[in-house]
């Protein structure tokens, strides 16, 4: 009798196993439906099976890595290799085309992957699952999260799960649960949570819960005010560092040499195109994982290229025009137009794609929905490094000494045996070279087009004039304060009016202090 029962169980197991497998593979195949409604139904059916293998497949589908081959097999791409999604056997990608998804399906998939991942043995997956439950809450998830919480051991995952649960419990029918959820969420600084609590204030019927929600919203609000002040300062510094990068080169050519160089913006543009060329060379010659390294290589290359062009310009055009600011201005403006057209003829009129390397994309989510984006942080650091290097060069190198001597008193410097002509050329080259490096950095946040420089030339002059002609520290302070003022004004006045207000402020300031923030004192200045 016993043996018979065992046999029955075995038979049942045997019968069940293939049936189960078929159910699973049928569900996977159903993902390749004709319309999105069917695909959504298939994804939901697949996740309802509760099979651990489904999570990987659904995630691949959300990322566009799930392909359907011509014979109906579903193939999954992982790191360049293709595998059969059901049997895990290696497969070819020859005739496979990706299964299309839309935003609604992506949302469903995210939720499904989240729910499936809650019980995964991998803590990293569980953490991600908790995040995705918060991002796309569904009423069914509450029970599952509660179950997951019971078995969870890691404190970090536990904390995230209870946050997720509290988020879901805000909509619970039981007022006690709602109140407990509010208590749990009171210390959050997530604007999403505040939004939900605010929404609750409008719909809540229980007065006690309502009062708790009101208090929690107040607490979150007062924290978020500080977050937004911090975010504003960061954005101001970041804009300031961009202005500074664009202006440092000009601070050398205009500030130190007194040359009104209208082609300064084009030096920035040439630097950005150098970054593009270096990137293309890297793409053509190196395996994809090293392509991201093109950026550190592009910086010195851009410096050399624009340095050479700068020296060439100085020797062939600008040195004949010293002391004639109007002619210099017209000549350099003409040069800027020629350089633009040259680049347009070589690279075409359309924008060129300079991709952010992986290490410069994304950011760290700090509190309260404020993201510290990597590219901005790196540019602030790069900008300070360039400024310090330049200051050190001027202060401690013999070239810096000669340069300062020539700008302060040219005849005397010449009498001391300093080759003034060569120093002029090198100084102009240095200013251009720095502009070229700035171009590499700016290619990471803006467009690379022949007109790139025009967007920066006015701002650069503004910074140099505001900071005080001839003073590097004035340029630094000028750029940072313009950046901060711009960003503080922007939320109230809008980007357009903010810019106008900053211009008005500068005009008024220049009226009051014509030589800018830091005026150079000395006999040579007025000559």
């Amino acid at each position, binding site marked *: 009798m016993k043996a018979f029962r065992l046999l029955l169980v075995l038979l049942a197991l045997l019968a069940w196993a293939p049936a189960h497998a078929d159910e699973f593979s049928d569900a996977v195949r159903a993902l390749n439906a004709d319309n999105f409604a069917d695909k959504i139904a298939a994804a939901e059916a697949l996740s309802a099976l509760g099979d651990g293998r489904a999570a990987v497949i659904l995630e691949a589908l959300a990322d566009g890595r799930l392909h359907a081959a011509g014979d109906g097999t579903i193939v999954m791409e992982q790191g360049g290799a293709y595998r059969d999604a059901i049997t895990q056997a290696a497969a070819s990608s020859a005739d496979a085309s990706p299964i299309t998804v839309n935003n*609604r399906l992506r949302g469903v998939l*995210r939720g499904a992957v989240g729910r499936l991942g809650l019980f995964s043995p991998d803590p990293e997956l569980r953490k991600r699952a908790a995040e995705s439950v918060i991002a796309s809450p569904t009423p069914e998830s509450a029970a599952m999260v509660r179950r997951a919480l019971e078995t969870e051991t890691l404190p970090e995952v536990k904390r995230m799960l209870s946050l997720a649960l509290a988020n879901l419990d805000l909509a619970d029918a039981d007022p006690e649960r709602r109140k407990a959820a509010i208590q749990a969420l009171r210390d959050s600084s997530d604007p999403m949570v505040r939004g939900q609590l605010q929404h609750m204030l409008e719909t809540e019927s229980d007065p006690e819960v309502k009062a708790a929600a009101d208090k929690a919203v107040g607490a979150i609000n007062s924290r978020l005010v500080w977050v937004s002040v911090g975010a504003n300062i960061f954005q101001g510094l970041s804009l300031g560092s961009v202005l500074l990068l664009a202006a440092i080169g000009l601070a050398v050519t205009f500030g130190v040499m007194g040359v009104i160089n209208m082609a300064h913006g084009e030096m920035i543009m040439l630097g950005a195109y150098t970054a593009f060329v270096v990137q293309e060379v890297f793409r053509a010659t190196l395996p994809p994982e090293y392509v991201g390294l093109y950026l550190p290589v592009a910086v010195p290359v851009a410096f050399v290229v624009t340095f050479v062009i700068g020296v060439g310009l100085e020797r062939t055009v600008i040195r004949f025009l010293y002391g004639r600011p109007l002619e210099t201005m017209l000549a350099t403006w003409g040069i800027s137009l020629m350089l633009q057209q040259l680049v347009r003829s070589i690279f075409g*009129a359309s924008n060129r794609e300079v991709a952010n390397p992986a290490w410069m*994309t*994304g950011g760290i989510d700090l509190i309260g929905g404020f*993201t510290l*984006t990597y590219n901005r942080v790196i540019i602030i650091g790069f900008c300070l490094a360039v400024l310090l290097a330049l200051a050190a060069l001027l202060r401690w190198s013999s070239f810096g000494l000669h340069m300062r001597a020539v700008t302060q008193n040219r005849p005397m410097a010449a009498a001391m045996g300093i080759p003034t002509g060569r120093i002029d050329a090198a100084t102009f080259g240095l200013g251009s070279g720095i502009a070229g490096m700035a171009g590499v950095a700016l290619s990471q946040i803006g*467009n690379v087009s022949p007109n790139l420089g025009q967007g920066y030339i006015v701002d650069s002059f503004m910074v140099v004039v505001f900071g005080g002609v001839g003073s590097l520290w004035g340029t630094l302070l000028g750029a940072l304060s313009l950046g901060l003022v711009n960003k503080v004004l922007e939320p109230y006045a*809008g980007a357009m009016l903010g810019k106008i207000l900053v211009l008005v402020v500068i005009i008024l300031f220049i009226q009051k202090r014509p030589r800018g923030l830091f005026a150079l004192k000395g006999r040579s200045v007025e000559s």
Partner: protein
Amino acid sequence: MKFVRALGAGLLAAASLLPFTAANAADDTIKVGVLHSLSGTMAISETTLKDTVLMMVDDINKHGGLLGKKVEAVVVDPASNWPLFAEKARELLEKEKVAAVFGCWTSVSRKSVLPVFEQLNGLLFYPVQYEGEESSRNVFYTGAAPNQQAIPAVDYLMSKDGGEVKRWVLAGTDYVYPRTTNKILEAYLKSKGVKAEDIMINYTPFGHNDWQTIVADIKKFGAAGKKTAVVSTINGDANVPFYKELANQGIKADQIPVVAFSVGEEELAGIDTKNLVGHLAAWNYFQSVKAPENDAFIAQWKTFIKNPKRVTNDPMEATYIGFKMWTQAVQQAGTTNVDAVRQAMYGQKVKNLTGGTAVMNTNHHLSKPVLIGEIQANGQMQTVWKSKDVIKADAWSPYIPESAKLKADWTYPWVCGNCAEPKFKM
């Protein structure tokens, strides 16, 4: 002295030849003007359209020309300079005596040439989606009006497939097209029961590249617990840093989708599209649409431009439709006379590249299908919604009270582009 005399004789001979060659040219060629910026900020977009017209001219000449004559394109460069557009338009009409002009991109350039075309009774084919609220007797608008692009896009986002959006950010560049479009959209959203506090409107200057604050604001606005979407009328290359910032601040398309009206395949060619996947664009044409006409067009374009990587986009299709319609109208009228061609234009039909047939209406706008696509990792659009039938363009939006009363119809008894009642009583 001998040299001077020889020179004089040569000049005389040349001068006597000149009128003869000109007359000769007028006899066996038909001139069309191409008025697109080939330098300056708009060169990025407009150069492509110049090449499209040249391709069409080349094609028609290969097939025996028009009315037995060769078609010759006269290309001028208004250099993204709006007043220069008017000067160049005058040059094309008065000096070159072109039969029709294909040109303009921005609304301000169109507004600048409008008086010239009306005064000299010229014919302009305008191939770009625009804000509507206009119908000139001398212009045929082959791009989309707001009800062929903006309104369907908003409807899609409100639908179940689009994510049932409840909160809206209207972000645009600060000039006439975004401002008018947003005015129409705001009125439309309010008519659909969206409250004022659920609409955020934001304008930025041309070429804006510091999007940190605005993207952070959008993030904050979207955190209010209601599904939020951004409707973007941001124009030109300001889009690139905008999308970059969105990606860097971690905003994904399934959380806050962005639907754009000025971002097409050409613009995406300059962006790393990996982070844009799932954001939307609304147009009347996508390169990715599978249709025999489209395949032929793409192949023709790639051969003509000698670059297999070049993409096609919506304004190119609009140029294609405009040029085809004009040649058909000229053939039907048997002349290039502007008044005759205009009459022949009404009801003119051309097959869309994406299927269906475009029809020219008496309000000088087209009936076209509307497509909504999601951006793919390869920079192409995948259609997620298509209008069931062609949609007829409204020259005047019914959602703005002042223009709801107006009607554009250039046939009897209306004969007017902005009238509340017909010019002639029946």
